[in-house]
């Protein structure tokens, strides 16, 4: 009997290993590997990718791709990941790989962003006053440079979920410290004094009931905020572009709860979603990309924008059809997808760039401005970006954008 139990255990163990590796190999041989994870909105690495003839002799690359493929192609991976994340989220209030914290009334907050808005004096990374000031200064110079060429710059700052719905933060979380002059306020003051048009008014948003654009389980909490905000700014003449006033073109803003990435991925929201904006109609069309990304592929979880599946670039071109407003360039983070769409409709033509890739895109930003000749440049940031210097590609990108001629 003892030997039978031991044999059963060995058989069970072996079976998990053989299935874990055998099924993906079978899929590879049959050409049925899973290449897209709709829930995570990303491309999966396949063994077919790993064994591409052009990369097979570069050992390090091959090794990395094999490691990624072996992880991505595990049978029923999405199911297991979902159960794990749900357990952490609902059982323990945190899901750290996605950076989610559960607040009151089932509200979700992004851990990093909570940190920014609740503890401006003690960020995960040290506040670098010199770098922040230098960045603000470069934005001011950027604005002056554009203005000298007769262009407009608007900076739209989307408040975070934790700013708009601070009342729903977890009970164990108190205001950590009261900074006498929050970095954000200082940054805003510096920008405005430098003549930059900055749109930031969370109190107005709260008063207007804009909290509906921060749905309880949305991953990109400030997605709605950026678009809603832009509308508010344009309608009230707060954006430095006089010719925008009074134009009635706004589609009905609508967003269904939980209709975006994280909630869908965890299976706590319907698998179908309603986009913040309707799909492009006859007047608005996506016709290509400014990056060298190659063929575009639509990944289902993205909202009314096209992502390049073959490269990490998220740049797009859009024919908005409003000839009188001239051309526009919109720069933002991934949360700005809806705002890209919104802003793009205001111009004759628009190019959208994702900040992450702006410093790597070709043509360079300077070349783009020269070649595309936009009348308006819109920079969409989340509020934490004006509180702390993070380092990394985003800020590097902004620095590059604002440093004329440094690129290439």
């Amino acid at each position, binding site marked *: 009997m003892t*030997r039978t139990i031991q044999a059963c255990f060995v058989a069970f163990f072996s079976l*998990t290993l053989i299935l874990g590796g055998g099924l993906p190999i079978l899929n590879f041989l049959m050409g049925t590997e899973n290449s897209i994870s709709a829930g995570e909105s990303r491309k999966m690495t396949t063994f077919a990718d790993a064994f591409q003839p052009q990369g097979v002799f570069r050992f390090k690359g091959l090794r990395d791709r094999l490691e990624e493929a072996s992880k991505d192609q595990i049978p029923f*991976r999405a199911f*297991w990941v979902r159960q794990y994340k749900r357990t952490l989220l609902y*059982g323990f209030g*945190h899901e750290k790989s996605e950076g989610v914290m559960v607040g009151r009334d089932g509200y979700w907050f992004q851990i990093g962003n909570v940190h920014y808005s609740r503890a401006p004096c003690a960020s995960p990374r040290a506040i670098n006053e010199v770098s922040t000031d230098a960045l603000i200064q470069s934005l001011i110079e950027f604005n002056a440079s554009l203005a000298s060429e007769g262009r407009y710059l608007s900076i739209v700052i989307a408040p975070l979920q934790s700013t708009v719905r601070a009342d729903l933060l*977890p009970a*164990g979380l108190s205001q950590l410290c009261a900074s006498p002059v929050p970095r954000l306020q200082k940054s805003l003051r510096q920008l405005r004094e430098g003549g930059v048009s900055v749109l930031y008014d969370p109190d107005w948003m709260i008063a207007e009931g804009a909290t509906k654009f921060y749905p309880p389980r949305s991953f990109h909490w400030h997605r709605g905020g950026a678009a809603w905000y832009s509308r508010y700014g344009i309608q009230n003449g707060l954006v430095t572009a006089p010719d925008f006033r009074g134009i009635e073109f706004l589609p009905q803003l609508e967003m269904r709860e939980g209709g975006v990435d994280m909630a869908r991925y965890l299976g706590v929201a319907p698998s179908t979603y309603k986009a913040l904006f309707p799909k492009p109609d006859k007047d608005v069309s996506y016709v290509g990309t400014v990056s060298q990304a190659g063929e575009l592929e639509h990944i289902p979880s993205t909202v009314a924008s096209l992502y390049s599946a073959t490269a990490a670039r998220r740049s797009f071109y859009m024919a908005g059809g409003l000839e009188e407003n001239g051309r526009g360039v919109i720069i933002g983070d991934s949360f700005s997808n809806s705002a890209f769409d919104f802003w793009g409709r205001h111009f004759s033509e628009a190019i959208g760039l994702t900040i992450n890739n702006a410093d790597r895109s070709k043509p360079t930003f300077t070349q783009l401005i020269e070649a595309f000749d936009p009348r308006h440049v819109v920079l969409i940031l989340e509020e934490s970006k004006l509180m702390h210097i993070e380092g990394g590609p985003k800020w590097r990108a902004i620095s590059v954008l604002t440093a004329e001629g440094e690129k290439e």
Partner: protein
Amino acid sequence: MVFSSAIFLFYFLPITLGIYFVAQKLAGPKLSNPVLFFFSIAFYAFGEAGFVLLILVSILINYVFGLLIDHQSVFLRRHRQTILLIGVCANILLLTYFKYLGFLAESLHQIVSLLGFSWTVTWPDVHLPIGISFFTFQAISYLVDVYRGHAKCQRNLLDLGLYIALFPQLIAGPIVRYETVDKQIRKRTLTTEGICSGLRLFCVGLFMKACLADTLAYNVDAIFAHPFEQLSTHVAWVAISAYSLQIFFDFAGYSLMAIGLGRACGFTFPQNFNQPYTSLNVREFWRRWHISLSTWFRDYLYIPLGGSQRAPTRTYANLLIVFLCTGIWHGASWNFVIWGLIHGLFIVLERKGLSRLLETVPRFFSRLYLIVVVMVAWVFFRIEDFSDAATVLAKMWFPDAGGHPVYASLILNTDGWFWTIFGISLIWSLWSPRLATTIATQVVRQRPITAELVKSVGAMILYLIALIVVISNTYSPFIYFRF
């Protein structure tokens, strides 16, 4: 390739074990040894393709020196000690070049600068090959064991290669001494019981590494990513407590996986951890922590230096030398030297009378003493910069040192998963092995089938949980890889 990666679990392991079992069944070690050697080299090549030649050269050098030490010619027999010395030096030189060259040059530069001279030292930026500290120590163990006559000289190059490069213990130990596995390399049998118990150990080790250590690591790394002056006292203690648990489960888990895989392949590797945090003093701690390293240093350094057989001052000096080497073995940096010396210093103090004092107080206080000493030492292990380490120590010991309870309020106060894992880890690491062993022995004796069932089902559950975590997690640092 780490044991907790998908490519190891679902591809390397089943293929290797499958072919190995068939080879062992067909022709025994004569065929299975080359098979295992081949897969061990492939395992190493996957992580360090550029250094396969290095490990092969190391095998060849030690093979030649082993033959020379064992050679029966009068000349060579007369110079056995010299040959051993040259062989050991060759290994140490190899290790020094790859691991310590930069550190030595930098230290020399600092000393020269302190003396007021201006001298710029330049040294090549040498990559540290994975596992070099482990396989070098194993190679030295081979030469010394052959020299001492504790083991026979290995005349089969592949078999010696298998000892040095055997994949379960290749990159993170335990440091298996040659005399331990000498006979097993030549002859071993595979049994269902051995395979089963080996795989069960692997499952438990995987759980320790993937579920406990990696979960703790996430918050530990996040806390230590803060500017240290922002840490509050309780956050500093939480961080270093979690780090103490992380490093234990990280390394003990990996060792257990290695021991388990070794057992499944028919080898018996020594136990590497035995509930170290239940120790009552630092001496006992080192009999329970990284046992294969501490016994290696005991047998190949401490005893040759004279051990405790000389005058007390010489014994103390020997102890400090051993712990200096233990520290530097862990990394080419002064913080590891300090870490080792703290342990050495407290062992000296215990020898000088602290032990007797500790015996007079309740066990709780002895344990508290051990845990505090070890945790303070971990600060230096974790933090390379002395001023940063001093800041953290100040935060730990002086509550009025200021600072905001950032992570405590933001993450630790709301993160149930971290605290659950912290609690499990704490109970697991402080659980008295005596009580557990007594219960287990009783159950096994009275109800062997129930005991087998409980062990197997328990291992299965831990394994499945660990698998889900492995599949879902992307965060899996491994502390002992850099050694």
